[in-house]
């Protein structure tokens, strides 16, 4: 039984408030290149048949009860995978007047997959991760909710920036700049390599 549940995660995909980037990437998982069906993953259109709920996009006031209903209509044991930045924190929509924030404000999330959008490989990795949690849940073990590494920041109530945070942001910016430079360099190098 525990092998069966690991081998056959049926996934229902719910688009909360997404820009469709994550959704397109998620559907790419089904294509021949990634072929998620080899892990027994079946994409179903219906929460009643599903084991894994994949959520993309942030939660707003209009769809929070829809998300809740879809979650409630899944039979136990079940896991929720939040795909991308939006369902984790609200992402770039976090400051919108209607957005509540991440999915974990409405339903418990088991796996967060980072990225905007995450790569298909990362998504598949997330589902496989979720399958492990699914098996634990079936055995009745308690599973702790994952702790997000990022603090959720939202609109007008945003706290004033502390010096540490400013330093962190500066560091992050510097790191990003360095990364971009490296990437640029790599991109420039490549044609040369080809030319050689």
């Amino acid at each position, binding site marked *: 039984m525990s092998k069966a549940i690991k081998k056959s995660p049926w996934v229902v995909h719910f688009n909360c408030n997404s820009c469709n980037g994550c959704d397109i990437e998620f559907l790419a998982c089904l294509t021949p290149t990634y072929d998620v069906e080899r892990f027994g993953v079946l994409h179903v259109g*219906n929460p*009643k048949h599903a084991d894994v709920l994949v959520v993309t996009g942030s939660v707003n006031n209009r769809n929070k009860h*829809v998300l809740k*209903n879809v979650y*409630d209509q899944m039979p136990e044991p079940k896991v929720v995978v939040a795909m991308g930045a939006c369902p984790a924190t609200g992402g770039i929509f976090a400051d919108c007047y209607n957005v509540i924030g991440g999915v974990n404000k409405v339903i418990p999330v088991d796996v967060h997959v980072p990225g905007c959008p995450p790569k298909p490989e990362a998504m598949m990795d997330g589902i496989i991760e979720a399958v492990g949690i699914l098996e634990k849940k079936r055995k009745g073990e308690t599973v702790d909710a994952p702790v997000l590494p990022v603090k959720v920041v939202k609109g007008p109530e945003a706290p004033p920036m502390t010096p540490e945070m400013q330093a962190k942001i500066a560091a992050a910016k510097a790191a990003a700049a360095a990364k971009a430079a490296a990437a640029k360099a790599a991109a420039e190098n490549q044609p040369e390599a080809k030319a050689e």
Partner: protein
Amino acid sequence: MNWISWVLPVLIALPLVGGVLAGIITSDRVRYTLVTLLAVLIAAGGIGVVYLSTLCDNGVWTMQAAPWMAHVGVGLELAIIAVILIVALKIKNWWIALFGVLQIAGVIGGLFIHGEHGSFELFKIDNLARIMLLVSCCVGAAILIFSIGYMHNHQKHAPEGAGSLQRFYFVFLSFLGLMIGLVVSSQLSFFSFFWEGTTLCSYALIGQDGGKARSQNAVRALLINSFGGVLLVLGVIVLKYQTGGETFNELFSKTDATIVAAVLLAIAAFTKSALFPFQSWLLGAMVAPTPVSAMLHAATMVKAGVYLVMRLMPNYQGDTRVTMVVAFAGAITFLGGALLACTQSNGKRVLAYSTISNLGLVVACAGINSPLAYAAGLAIISFHAISKGLLFLCVGRIEQEIGSRDIEDMDGLMFKMPFTSLMILIGMMSMLLPPFGMLLSKWLAIEATMRSPFLLIFMVLGSALTVYFWAKWIGRIQHTGYHPVLPKEEIPRTMKIALSLLALMVLGTGITTMLILTNVFTPMAETVFGSKGMLSETANFKYGALIIFGAVAIFGVLHYFICWHGFKREWVRKPFLCGENVTTEEVEADSEVRSYDFHSVGGKIEHSHVTNYYFLGIINEKLVTGCLNWAAWLIILVLIGNTVSYTNSKNQLAKDTAPAVKSVQKAGKSAASDLGNFADSIKKEAK
């Protein structure tokens, strides 16, 4: 067995006299007691007569009557036609009047044809009559009991100009009595009397509630059945002219000469059984109070027609050219009825079309004229009567309760009227569930149809369509949400008793279907056709029936303990509506909001409702009816033409070939004796 010669006339007279009494009595309470008593007596009498008649030699009971009784028969017949004529004059319908005059002329003309004047066979109870007696008495009695509660309510809300209860019970009871008389009479004058009697009663009952539409439909019923009556009288005259006698025995003893008479009688039977193209009166008859519809469809009237066809056809086995046309007339009705039933949303009309369709199947079985088909026909008549009686009564009850007979309005009935819904579900399941009689007899019918591949197309398509409209209706009735407890249904006691009785009959015959088929209907068909062992293959199915029952029983018990008994409230979820389901608070706040409603644009609460599929815009009822009527008229014309030319050619052939046949027979005989001698000599040599 002198008993039966008293019991039977009493059984016929009982409803007639009881009807008169019920018509005189003014106190409702006394009348209801009388009707209950009569219902019990009729059922007991019917079963008694059937039992007693089986004890006779060969299982056939007959009653001879003195010659003067023939005049009584003619007198009765004339009297009832005169009543129809008076009715026709009163409502100023000249067609009916014309048919009445023609009938009277026919009957009087028949008197001048010299026949044998001796004692004759008045009543005869054989296997077919026994089945019909059981159907009429048992189902009829249940309908009588139901009618007490129904008519009591009905009369409270009856439209203006509706007939009184006295009138209703007078006609209703007489109807049953006449039907009992019809199935046992062997003499054709008496038969015609009972036949016309049922026509008249149906006219009176359809028009019971008054009003223009109802009286129009009643007149249509009278018109079409009078036309049948003319054909019946004509058939009797032809018979009398050709054989001199006027009982069924004469009809069957010289089948070469009487095929024309038989075909005329068969067409008369088509009108009575509402086969295409005569179906319109039965559909119009739906305006009557429901017990009337039940009586028309299940116990009396339309069953009289198929009874006559079933009685006639087996005696013309040699005339396949004629009987096959009859089978076609039945088969086209089977397909047409089923097709039109699929397009109807009015429950009573669905039932009516389904009845027409099944009657067509019986006629087709009779026309196929093989033992297997005959057994199937008998089975359909009896199983159909019980199931259809139950269904009609349930629809009547539902209509009184919810004020509509539309199938779409029966949505979620299971939790509004659990008892009635259970009954109607039993009735409908018995029309298509494997171990029940209707499906098994349809199975026999299809196997028997192998004699003609063209007939087969009708059978195959018709049987697929039958499943379609029943499944839709069952689905609508049990379409519900979750209810923790069933509400208790308020139902008058008489209705409850009648419905339970019929449901028990359905279940009882359903469980024992295979036994009934092999032990009752098969021997009957074998007696009629004089052949044995026709069901050797199908008898093999006993085994299969055992497997079905075994599996359903085992899984049923398992299911009960695991799923039904172990069902928990926590299992229940709302249906999938893309997550837009209403919340529990919203349901509690507003009694109009259901748990299965959903939020639409702007948070508005909407109710989702999907109707059944009725082929709207694809099948036009009027157009299809027109086409079918045209085809059916064509078949009837072919039937008549075929019969006439066939008889002529046959007579001619018989005359022409008589010497030749004789010489061939002679030659054959001499050859056979030569062969015999030759064989003997060889034997001798061998020794």
